[in-house]
């Protein structure tokens, strides 16, 4: 699946944020992954172990928060967790439902050491001249 390319994006984001904050080591990376995102936790962790080598995230921990799938019925506005991935409203039986959560793939926050003794970086964490 696409855990590898997702992890590349993730590490790029974290590296940029860390550089901007002037820290050279990230302790925790908290990600939120939706139930319906198609992401496999083990594959994501594996990609993290391999790809984080040599980055600020190398010695950090990947915290994985699974966000349940929730849908909202456009008929009665009720929110529910669809059973069996069939999106029919348990209240009114309506089939016209939108996804409220469960498709997330995001870096929520990172934790770094309190004082890294480094100066704040430039606005852009990118090393290369673009």
């Amino acid at each position, binding site marked *: *699946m*696409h855990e590898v390319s997702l992890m590349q994006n993730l590490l790029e984001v974290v590296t940029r944020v860390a550089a901007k904050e002037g820290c050279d080591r990230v302790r*925790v990376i908290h990600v939120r992954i939706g139930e319906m995102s*198609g992401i496999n936790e083990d594959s994501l962790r594996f990609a993290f172990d391999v790809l984080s080598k040599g980055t600020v995230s190398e010695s950090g921990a990947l915290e994985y928060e699974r966000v349940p799938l929730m849908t909202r019925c456009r008929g009665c506005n009720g929110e529910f967790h669809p059973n069996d991935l*069939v*999106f029919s409203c348990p209240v009114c039986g309506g089939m016209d439902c939108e996804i409220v959560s469960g498709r997330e*793939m*995001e*870096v929520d926050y990172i*934790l770094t050491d309190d004082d890294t003794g480094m100066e704040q970086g430039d606005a852009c964490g990118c090393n290369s001249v673009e």
Partner: protein
Amino acid sequence: MHEIHVGTDLREKNRLIAEENRDLIRKNGVVSLNIMSAPGAGKTSLLVNTIPHLRDRYSIGVIEGDLQTSRDAERIAELGIAVYQIQTGGVCHLDASMVHSALHRLDLDIIDLLFIENVGNLVCPAEFDLGEDARVMLLSITEGDDKPKKYPLMFRESRLLVLNKVDLLQYVDFDIDKAKGEALDINPDIEILELSCKTGEGIDGWISWIEKFYGKCRNG
């Protein structure tokens, strides 16, 4: 420890490039379809069977996504159609930036209809907006009628579901009404066509679906 809020969606970069693609496609008056399915469901066969019916009236372009090979692109090129091959090098889906480079290599101002054959995979392609006008998903009846429930996102994100290989219905245990019913449970707006690339049954319906969709995109 010090907490730094990030809140970045990991698909954000893809989304931005997809918007650029959409602008580029619109500006050039191109109508584009992203064709998605599991490997072997018949995406390339469908294109090969579709092109002869449309080429008199539309200038056609094809972007072929493949893990490693260029076999599919060669099948299209044999028809004398402009085709650009993306080899993803093992990446299991096309993303917007791959398609973006392909768009720059095609002669967009003469193309009317652009088909994008995605990498064969029922999960990941659904997550990546390419900037296309519509997504078409192929399900071949040899894959089993339980696919809608197993891969709901793909069904939710598609405008049209094409059930392919109906010539084999008598040989396999595929409940076509059940599959359609479940697809509609997941996505009440999905349109469904049945066809066979082998016998040509149902191709007419698919051709008129494309014509109607093309008209709708062009006339707003």
